[in-house]
């Protein structure tokens, strides 16, 4: 059996204590150990962004992160964002603009979009496209996604 290590971290505001396999990736831990399946597995190699989460405020591909590295960190997943009133405008904007087709990329898109809004509150469409360049939408619904994020910027323009 692989080596396990005890870790403690904050997940969506709640302290978690777990023993994890030291080679497990953070995405597998979130989905299979903790049971939060909002974060998606797309490519497993950091190309698609479906597994995007916030780690100490910064977005990361959870598929490329060692779960054991969560120790002591503050983690937010799409489930945490869903409970955050600050993200209401973004969520409503995605609905309003029809920025969801099959929906598989949506959790990652919304996580990355919320990071863009936090770090560049005045981002224009070009900056939003740069910010979302690590997120793929296989339905190619990019126009509506960028529109939704732009409209959520500064509470819409």
């Amino acid at each position: 059996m692989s080596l396990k290590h005890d870790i403690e971290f904050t997940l969506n505001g709640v302290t978690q204590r777990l023993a994890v396999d030291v080679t497990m990736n953070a995405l597998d831990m979130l989905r299979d150990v903790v049971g939060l399946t909002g974060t998606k597995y797309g490519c497993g190699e950091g190309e698609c962004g479906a597994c995007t989460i916030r780690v100490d405020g910064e977005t990361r591909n959870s598929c490329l992160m060692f779960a054991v590295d969560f120790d002591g960190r503050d983690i937010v997943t799409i489930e945490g964002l869903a409970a955050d009133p600050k993200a209401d405008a973004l969520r409503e904007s995605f609905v309003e603009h029809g920025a969801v087709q099959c929906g598989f990329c949506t959790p990652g898109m919304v996580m990355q979009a919320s990071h863009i809004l936090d770090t560049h509150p005045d981002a224009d469409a070009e900056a939003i496209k740069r910010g979302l360049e690590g997120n793929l939408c296989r339905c190619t619904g990019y126009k509506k996604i960028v529109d939704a994020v732009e409209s959520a910027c500064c509470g819409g323009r």
Partner: protein
Amino acid sequence: MTAIERYAAPQSLDEALGILQQGDVTILAGGTDLMLQTKVGRIAFKPTLMNIGRVAGLKGVTVDGQHLRIGALTTISELLRDPLVAQHAPVLAEACDHFASDQIRNAGTLGGNINNASPAGDTLVPLIVLDAEVELASKPNGSVATRRLPLAEFFTGPGRTKRNANELLTAVRIPLPKPGHVARFYKFGTRPALDISTISIGIAGIKRDGMLTDTRVAFGAVAPTPLRAPRTEAALEGRRLDAGAIEAAADAARDEVNPIDDIRASAWYRKELIHNMTKRMLDHVAQA
């Protein structure tokens, strides 16, 4: 595959070097390369997995005398928005802007990009033309020893470097630019984001009265390691940057690289890119 017997997350450099000295350690920093490479079997875990992410003092950018000093754990995102990097090594910030995606830039560290030693590593070519050196620390007999090595001499093959197993790359040092210093970076890929370089080019030097001296040229993704290009440099050194000199340098560059055919481009196409883009970059340097 060896089973991992120990996981360590040291908080001090001293502690980390002590663990390295015991041998058989896989070093984890941002994890973006290590996770992938262990998954596909290109790297096997050693008995000790050491996470250096919590080692104090390995992060951040400072000016140290006549050098810019970048801690090995500084992330690509941090480099991209660092005012000292923007002021003293803007070509490095430019390369960071072409680096993968926001999520990967937030995770990946400069030390990791260097130690991964990919011939296409995005920061390597600009760092080489900026005369960067790496600082390696170890604790061979109870006390910490450091040595420095020019980055241009650090790489020995894909994924291989001159770092000894008991050493940790702690920082990168870049001499502060002299008056008249120019530096350019170009990366060719099929899309701006998340693309591995088909080729990349770095050019730097001191430009005075239309002439280039202290010329540095380096290429990425055209050899088993990032490559400094002495024959291309010689074609430029001390010469006026006129059409003849630029064409001679672009020809030298094409002859000097030895790329392979792969999914991203043929060897022939890479040589043409090196020739044409070296020429274009030198035209821009001449006009600047």
